[in-house]
């Protein structure tokens, strides 16, 4: 058997290589390190199946690089080593040759990847790591992961790598296959899923499983599932395996057919992949006569100096660039992404699925993700940089003329710089393509406000620097490692360190290569103060790369002395005086800039790692947790004098708090603490008090009152807050006070009264590590003590005099009493009619203002002059909402209402009492408000206006489970009605689909009931859907009446605080007994319906009517907290609807009582229906909506 012999030879060859073992070691090490770094969640054992699966899949990404080296070698080593004339001429068939080589590569790879599950297994039993409880050893957990995921992946990847390398006859081509699998397929899968809104596509398309398995199914596992559940070969995962195995086999067949055991002379390696008639190769015939030439070569004076070296550098740069530009993916890769972006611009330029004005800033946000961000298509760029840098460093050696080039009078630094510049040129070419894609995207969307300057600045100023830094690192690594495959591997590890520094517990950006505090750009703020710190960091990193480049120049492999020992020897000689100067310069820069940055991040500003932060929170609880239930006076009035100096990033606040003892006991001490760590000073009381504890570390001060504050008594507290941004910090540059974009809230700067439970650590596992008593994230609904506490006890009126620079307008909640100018400052005086709770914000910017009146309420709209697109729409929404809510739930409590654009790139809006803030991105949303469109911005504002009734200073639920339903669920429900009233049912239906669509995202079906809701998903989505369903079953008036009644019975901040139990009770009042089950199912249970119409048939009666028969199937399942399904008997009222062709209005819509299982529904209607089924309006929680109705089958 020749095949067997070839296999054995190849296998032995690969196994005997040290690198193969090194690869295995890397994979093993990966699993160990990951086990050290990852801590399982609460209630999850260390050796849970989720960990085993996830690490194997992610380790598979690293293996893709390794596997490419193995498969590429097996496929194309003979050609690379120029041994193929020997091997190809032996009497070996193509089948034996390719078969043996492929099987050997596959076998080695299969063994290598075995080290992943094996390493995971070992990592649980490494001595010194024990101490954690482990589940018993379950071999099947490892085997199933290996045989279902790892091994098929290995086969698929090896086949592609092998095929590509064999056909191109280039070992390195196998890396393209890896790139294709790791990134292109991944990004493609996620992109298609996003484009078509179908997440199942990811499961089907992703070959590696990072998105398709980990990001998809696994993300939905509950704690108990994570412990024990296994990935099973069914559903889309099965089809995924079938699909990719067929691709792999197809590739192998193609390889077999197209591969030639012959020396191929052709210009393009691409031609080997495509069918083409052979072109005669032309070689010039030579006269066989020998004669002396006698031609004199002119003697030219050559000079060797900087000018010549520069010329050489440019030449090497150019030849490097052309090499990369001609590479099959050199320009096409980025070009294709740019093209696809331009074509699908209408899907990319959206916010919450609503089209947005493609302003340049928006397009640039898409084009410039951080270098380490792999989740956008542009994540391909750093990977291509790594790959191409390897190609460039090895260019001469791969072409076989390194001896010629190395013997030329070219200094090492010229090679180094030339190649770096060559890659720089290709980067510029890529950025040009990206810019073209971005502009095409804008023009394609009929937007012509191109800001070319901003494009150039962002792409070629900011983004290019980042890519260049990364490219230089890749260059240095490839030069120093001096082994292409290992260079790639090292670079990938470095890259993952850059991309996920927190995973490796590195947080300070002085330690993360190329990092910076981040920059942003917004229409209002421009780049703000972000460019300075960015530049300091970049110069610091450039100094580092200079040092690295010196190292690379010294270690540059030249001639035949390629071993590190020999190169180190040569490096000593190369270390000239100028090298020493450059090294000194670089070191000096690193030290001085590093110290300067450190001074800024750690001295001028407080540097806190996440561990420091957690420790701080834990310490807060340890020191002051004892005061959790100490009675404290309530904040009743806030008076502020605020002076904003945007240019200097400075604000000074003089504050007076009026505190009232609303408890029944005298209060003898006042706790004043700052959440954000901003200090306050000059604290005075209007009655004798002494500081008993001044904690400047956690900023929590305790003052003892000489005379206790008796119930009902009040006191005044005065203090000053100085906030001045000094220098810059480690993470994102602070944005509280910025030119044309000041926005800060009370949480950002102002102290609060009493112990603040939300300053505690909430994560159960972290609490355990800090030895804090276990506590639920949100107190239980049935915790009677907790039910007495709202999220915030403050019920304060607010008054502020705010001054800012002349060009800007300052804004705060309340009615605008007065504006005046004094000197170069502009003053405003705001005052609220009544209590606004405790949350507020103060803003300053160059706003345009519109003032309108509605029923005695003055509505003031502040916006960036260029963002006027939605102002009318917003005003309409505010007015319509005010009118509707007043009518349905009760009056609006203030005579003032403010809507203001908040500088920064947020897309949503938020509300405080009597004021709504919306992000700059919101103002760019450009919805279709025609009958088929969906005016989301209109809805969003209606939702925020609804919070003036639900939450804030009106309905103040207890801070227990379900509290969010009373705030967000009711606001969603209310906003929907305003949307429906303004735009009709179609817009509402789009919104309902939007609410339902998040059920389709990968998410766990096991969740709490609405009564005990504990996450946003339940608050917003399920809350909204459940209330909407009830309004359809019970009638809108009844439900709204119940809500109005709930609101009337509870005064803000007064006990008993409302909970979901009160809401339930109110709705139950208006629910007939026959529908009690539904209220129960929606609010008390985690119930899902599976409703399906299988067949719709019609027959005309003699009277000309239509007899309709529907075969439907129904099922109701309860999913418990660990994700187990329990089928529940059904006897449910469900809508049954029939519709005519092209009509929205139902031909027939009635409630029918539906039992579990299959059944037939008979209905007679006057006209012929076109479609119909059960629950046509999607009132139930059903994961599949598309099968509720069917089309009439035409006979």
């Amino acid at each position, binding site marked *: 058997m020749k095949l067997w012999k070839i296999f054995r030879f190849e296998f032995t060859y690969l196994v005997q290589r040290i690198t193969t073992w090194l690869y295995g070691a890397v994979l093993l090490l990966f699993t160990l390190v990951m086990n050290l770094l990852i801590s399982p969640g609460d209630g999850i054992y260390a050796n849970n199946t989720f960990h085993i699966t996830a690490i194997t899949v992610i380790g598979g990404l690293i293996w893709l690089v390794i596997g490419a080296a193995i498969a590429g070698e097996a496929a194309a080593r003979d050609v690379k080593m120029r041994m193929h004339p020997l091997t190809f001429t032996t009497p070996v068939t193509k089948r034996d040759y390719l078969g043996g080589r492929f099987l050997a590569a596959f076998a080695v790879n299969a063994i290598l990847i075995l080290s992943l599950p094996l390493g995971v297994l070992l990592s649980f039993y490494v001595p010194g790591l024990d101490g954690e409880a482990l589940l018993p050893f379950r071999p099947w957990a490892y085997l199933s992961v290996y045989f279902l995921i790892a091994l098929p992946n290995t086969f698929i990847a090896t086949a592609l790598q092998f095929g590509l390398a064999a056909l191109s006859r280039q070992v390195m081509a196998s890396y393209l296959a890896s790139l294709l699998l790791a990134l292109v397929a991944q990004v493609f899968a996620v992109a298609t899923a996003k484009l078509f809104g179908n997440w199942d596509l990811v499961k089907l398309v992703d070959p590696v499983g990072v998105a398709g398995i980990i990001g998809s199914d696994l993300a939905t596992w509950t704690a108990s599932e994570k412990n024990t559940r296994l990935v099973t070969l069914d559903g889309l995962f099965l089809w995924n395996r079938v699909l990719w195995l067929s691709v792999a086999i197809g590739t192998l067949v193609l390889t077999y057919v197209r591969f030639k055991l012959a020396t191929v002379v052709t210009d393009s390696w691409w031609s080997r992949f495509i069918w083409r008639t052979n072109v005669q190769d032309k070689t010039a015939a030579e006269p066989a006569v*020998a004669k002396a030439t006698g031609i004199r070569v002119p003697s030219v004076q050559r000079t060797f100096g900087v000018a010549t070296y520069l010329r050489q550098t440019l030449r090497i740069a150019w030849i490097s660039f052309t090499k990369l530009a001609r590479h099959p993916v050199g320009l096409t890769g980025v070009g294709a992404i740019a093209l696809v972006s331009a074509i699908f611009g209408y899907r990319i330029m959206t916010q919450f699925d609503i089209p947005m004005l493609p302003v340049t800033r928006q397009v640039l946000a898409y084009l410039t993700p951080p270098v380490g961000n792999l989740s956008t298509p542009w994540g391909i760029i750093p990977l291509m940089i790594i790959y191409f840098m390897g190609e460039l460093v090895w260019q001469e050696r791969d072409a076989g003329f390194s001896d010629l080039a190395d013997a030329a009078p070219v200094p090492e630094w010229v090679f180094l710089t030339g190649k770096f510049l060559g890659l720089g040129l290709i980067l510029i070419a890529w950025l040009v393509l990206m810019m073209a894609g971005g502009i095409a995207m804008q023009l394609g969307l009929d937007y012509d406000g191109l800001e070319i300057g901003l494009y150039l600045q962002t792409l070629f100023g900011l983004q290019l620097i980042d890519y260049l830094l990364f490219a230089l690192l890749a260059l240095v690594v490839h030069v120093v490692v001096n082994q292409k495959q290992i260079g790639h591997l090292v670079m990938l590890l470095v890259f993952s360190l850059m991309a996920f520094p927190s995973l490796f517990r590195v947080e300070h950006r002085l330690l993360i290569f190329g990092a910076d505090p981040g920059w942003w750009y917004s229409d209002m703020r421009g780049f703000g103060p972000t460019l300075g710190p960015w530049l300091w960091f970049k110069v610091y990193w450039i100094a580092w790369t200079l040092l690295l480049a010196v190292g690379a120049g010294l270690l540059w492999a030249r001639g035949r002395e390629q071993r590190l020992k020999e190169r180190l020897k040569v490096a000593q000689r190369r270390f000239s005086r100028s090298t020493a100067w450059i090294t000194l310069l670089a070191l000096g820069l690193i030290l001085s800039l590093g110290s300067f940055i450190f001074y800024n991040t750690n001295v001028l500003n407080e540097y806190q790692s996440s561990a420091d932060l957690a420790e701080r929170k834990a310490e807060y609880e340890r020191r002051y947790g004892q005061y959790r239930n100490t009675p404290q006076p309530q904040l009743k009035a806030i008076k502020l004098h605020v002076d904003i100096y945007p240019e200097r990033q400075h604000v000074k606040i003089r504050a007076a708090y009026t505190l009232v003892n609303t408890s029944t006991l005298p209060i003898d001490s006042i706790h004043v603490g700052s959440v954000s760590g901003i200090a306050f000073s000059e604290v005075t009381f209007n009655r004798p008090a002494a500081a008993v504890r001044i904690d400047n570390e956690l900023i929590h001060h305790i003052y003892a009152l000489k005379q206790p504050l008796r119930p009902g008594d009040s006191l005044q507290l005065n203090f000053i807050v100085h906030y001045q941004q000094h220098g810059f910090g480690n993470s994102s540059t602070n944005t509280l006070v910025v030119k044309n974009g000041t926005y800060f809230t009370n949480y950002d700067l102002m102290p609060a009264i009493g112990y603040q439970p939300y300053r505690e650590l909430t994560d159960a596992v972290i609490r355990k590590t800090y030895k804090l008593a276990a506590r639920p994230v949100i107190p239980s609904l049935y915790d009677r003590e907790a039910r007495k506490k709202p999220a915030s006890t403050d019920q304060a009126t607010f008054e502020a005099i705010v001054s800012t620079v002349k060009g800007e307008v300052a804004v705060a909640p309340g009615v605008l009493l007065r504006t005046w100018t004094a000197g170069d400052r502009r003053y405003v005086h705001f005052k609220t009619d009544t209590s606004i709770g405790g949350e507020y914000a103060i803003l300053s910017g160059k706003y345009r203002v519109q003032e309108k009146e509605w029923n005695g309420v003055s509505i003031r709209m502040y916006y960036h002059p260029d963002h006027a697109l939605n102002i009318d729409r917003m005003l309409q929404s505010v007015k319509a909402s005010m009118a509707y809510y007043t009518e349905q739930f009760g009056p609006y409590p203030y005579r003032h209402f403010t809507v203001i654009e908040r500088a920064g790139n947020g897309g949503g809006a938020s509300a405080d009492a009597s004021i709504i803030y919306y992000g700059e991105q919101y103002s760019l949303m450009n919805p279709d408000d025609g009958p088929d469109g969906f005016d989301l911005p209109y809805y969003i504002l209606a939702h925020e206006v609804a919070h003036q009734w639900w939450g804030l200073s009106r309905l103040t639920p207890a801070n227990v489970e379900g509290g969010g339903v009373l705030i967000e669920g009711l606001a969603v429900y209310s906003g929907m009605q305003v949307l429906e009233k303004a735009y009709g049912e179609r817009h509402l239906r789009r919104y309902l689909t939007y609410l339902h669509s998040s059920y389709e995202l990968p998410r766990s079906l096991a969740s709490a009931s609405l009564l005990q809701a504990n996450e946003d998903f339940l608050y917003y989505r399920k809350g909204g859907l459940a209330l909407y369903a009830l309004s359809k079953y019970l009638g809108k008036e009844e439900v709204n009446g119940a809500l109005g009644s709930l609101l009337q019975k509870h005064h803000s901040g007064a006990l008993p605080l409302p909970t979901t139990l009160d809401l339930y009770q109110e709705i139950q009042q208006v629910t007939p007994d026959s529908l009690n089950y539904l209220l129960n199912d929606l609010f008390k249970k985690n119930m899902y319906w599976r409703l399906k119409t299988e067949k719709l048939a019609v027959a005309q009666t003699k009277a000309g009517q239509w007899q309709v028969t529907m075969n439907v199937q129904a099922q109701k399942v309860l999913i418990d907290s660990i994700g187990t399904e329990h089928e529940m008997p059904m006897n449910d009222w469900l809508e049954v609807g029939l519709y005519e062709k092209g009509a929205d209005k139902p031909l027939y819509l009635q409630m029918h009582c539906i039992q579990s299982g299959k059944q037939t529904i008979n209905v007679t209607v006057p006209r012929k229906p076109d479609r119909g089924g059960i629950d046509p309006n999607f009132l139930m929680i059903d994961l599949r909506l598309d099968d509720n109705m069917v089309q009439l089958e035409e006979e």
Partner: protein
Amino acid sequence: MELQIRNVSKTYTKGRGGEVQALKNVTLTIPNGMYGLLGPNGAGKSTLMRILATLQEPDEGSVHLGNIDVVNQPEQVRQTLGYLPQEFGVYPKARAEELLDHFAILKGFSQRKSRREVVGALLQKVNLWDVRHQKLGGYSGGMRQRFGVAVALLGNPKLLIVDEPTAGLDPAERVRFLNLLSELGENSVVILSTHIVEDVSELCTRMAIINKGEILHEAEPLEAMNALHGRIWQKVIAKNELAQLEREHTIISTKLLGGRTVVHVYSEETPAMFDPVQPDLEDVYFSVMADHMMAGRVADSQGGQQNDQQANEA
């Protein structure tokens, strides 16, 4: 200008702890003109050539070109160095003119106009002018070799190193090639390493024979041949007589010719039944090699061959 090689040694560490001494204490003085370095495969020629071409460093010893310390001042050497390696590749997709232009820039021709002239003249000189627009991937072995010569000749090097240049050339190519070289030998040091004796005898004014890293003999070819005058004898024998003859005489070469074996022996006296031969350089080479083998170790040539084969397989 004179090239002085003093006590140069170089040892390679092979895998699994073994060591191979490629050069042992080599000392040579090479004046202007063509200098032949003759030796069998694996004798250390290429190592020496690469050391001279600044691509390797000796473990010990020094090399000086005039005043330039080749080992420690590689930059200066490279400015006046022409090197044609034994094996080299090209960018198959590049055209000859482009790639030569590229090398011209690397060699320091920074002026565009004069560079074009030099490149053009060199292409004509190596007879590639007509095919200068063709891609190098389509070149024959000889054309590619001549392209290499053009690269080596860029900048009128004072030190030209050509490593086994004629291997694989057809006779016409070889003549053309040697002509090119001899033109250059007038005011440069040209070192030609080869295992083909004729290359040396036709071109070189001085030569050295190297084997297993040692210089065995250094001489002028003519002198060397003269020195052997009357000491080389030839006999045509049957194959089975060879063993007998080997015991009695110092055989320097055997050649099979039409089923018979032509044996050359070295003898200072006239051996019986032998014919005198006018010694050529090949006889010089073989007698030096034979002498060395006798002196160095007593081993039969067959054993040596087996070793070679093993080496090849490894």
